[in-house]
């Protein structure tokens, strides 16, 4: 594989065996990008061998060489493009294989083709060096190492919420919010937004509960020092902590932990408070 040339329009390869969808995506993306297409895995590999692409839209259920094999092939190349996976297979196993293959996003079919250009633009504008490292990819035990960048929070929340696709929407929503809040806290306060530092995330799915553990690389904090957080307020005085924040010279805010506490069943910190576990019971 060669590297795309700087300064030229971004190049996209659409790999999709559904002719109608392939044509629709190619037409839509051609308005802003240089686009090639491939209708099966063999053609896709030939295109990738001969051309340089910034991004690949990759169907997983291809005849011949599968999309996951292509993903794995791309990861072994020297100039790997970003990959957005498109599939009707939304099982956790497939999702986790895509994450392990460093897919940038994972789109479940059917989807309106018109939504794709925005997703592609977002992917192309993102920092390609921010990789999610998969330490364990069992559907009931997922463990990841992620760089301390807020840009990754959106993507990761999307991936993690798809693991819980079978749960009622209200539960998925609470868990997704709680996970995102604690992840952002870990990235911003524990990791100081330094993308060379990592947050370790574990997700455990048992029959009757979900458990998330988030460990950040920081020194932790003391609950007694949280006068600037909404958790310190009297129940009927939701903005009292603002005075402490003003005194400390920090902007308004401090709602994250209070929000999480209202959305999950248990919230537990380790002694240093640089690792947190939350539990959501499912019955």
């Amino acid at each position, binding site marked *: 594989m060669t590297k795309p040339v700087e300064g030229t329009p971004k190049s996209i390869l659409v790999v999709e065996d559904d002719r109608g969808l392939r044509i629709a995506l190619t037409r839509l993306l051609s308005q802003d990008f240089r686009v090639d297409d491939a209708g099966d895995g063999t053609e896709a590999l030939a295109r990738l061998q001969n051309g340089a692409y910034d991004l690949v839209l990759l169907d997983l259920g291809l005849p011949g060489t599968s999309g996951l094999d292509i993903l794995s092939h791309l990861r072994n190349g020297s100039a790997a493009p970003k990959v957005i996976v498109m599939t009707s297979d939304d099982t956790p196993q497939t999702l986790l294989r895509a994450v392990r293959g460093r897919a940038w996003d994972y789109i479940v079919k059917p989807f309106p083709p018109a939504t794709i250009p925005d997703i592609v633009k977002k992917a192309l504008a993102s920092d390609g060096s921010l990789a999610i490292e998969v330490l364990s990819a069992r559907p009931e035990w997922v463990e990841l190492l992620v760089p301390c960048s807020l840009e990754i929070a959106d993507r990761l929340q999307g991936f993690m919420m798809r693991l819980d696709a079978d749960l009622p929407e209200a539960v998925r929503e609470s868990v997704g919010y709680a996970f995102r809040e604690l992840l952002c806290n870990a990235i911003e306060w524990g990791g100081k937004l330094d993308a060379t530092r990592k947050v370790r995330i574990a997700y455990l799915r048992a029959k009757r509960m979900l458990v998330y553990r988030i460990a950040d690389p920081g020194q932790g904090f003391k609950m007694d020092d949280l006068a600037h957080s909404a958790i310190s307020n009297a*129940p009927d005085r939701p903005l009292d902590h603002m005075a402490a924040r003003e005194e400390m010279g920090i902007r308004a805010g401090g709602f994250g932990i209070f929000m999480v506490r209202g959305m999950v069943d248990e919230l537990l910190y380790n002694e240093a408070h640089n690792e947190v576990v939350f539990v959501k019971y499912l019955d």
Partner: protein
Amino acid sequence: MDVRQETRVGHLILTPDDSLMCGGRAEQFERLLQEVIAAGQRHLIVDLGAVAHADSGGVRALVRGHLTVQQQGGRLALANIPGNVQRVLHLLKLDTVFPIYDSVDGALSDVAGT
């Protein structure tokens, strides 16, 4: 994220077209609110109709806007709030802090005393 701005009956109505989440969109909206207040706007209505979700970053943008404009003798009202965002505001007891209306027209009628 785009934020439509429209002035009606002496109020600046801000309509963000996406969720307000930390990591970009919430911070962008927070900056915009502070800018319009610094430019002299004192009567603001935020139409949250297209804001499907708001995390603590989105809440911070609204609270900071509320506090800043209040210090200037102004007011920030919220209108057209989707269920998810209502639940977050209620959880944080912030539905007792902001003036909240079902619609922008409702907010403007209230101000006009009709």
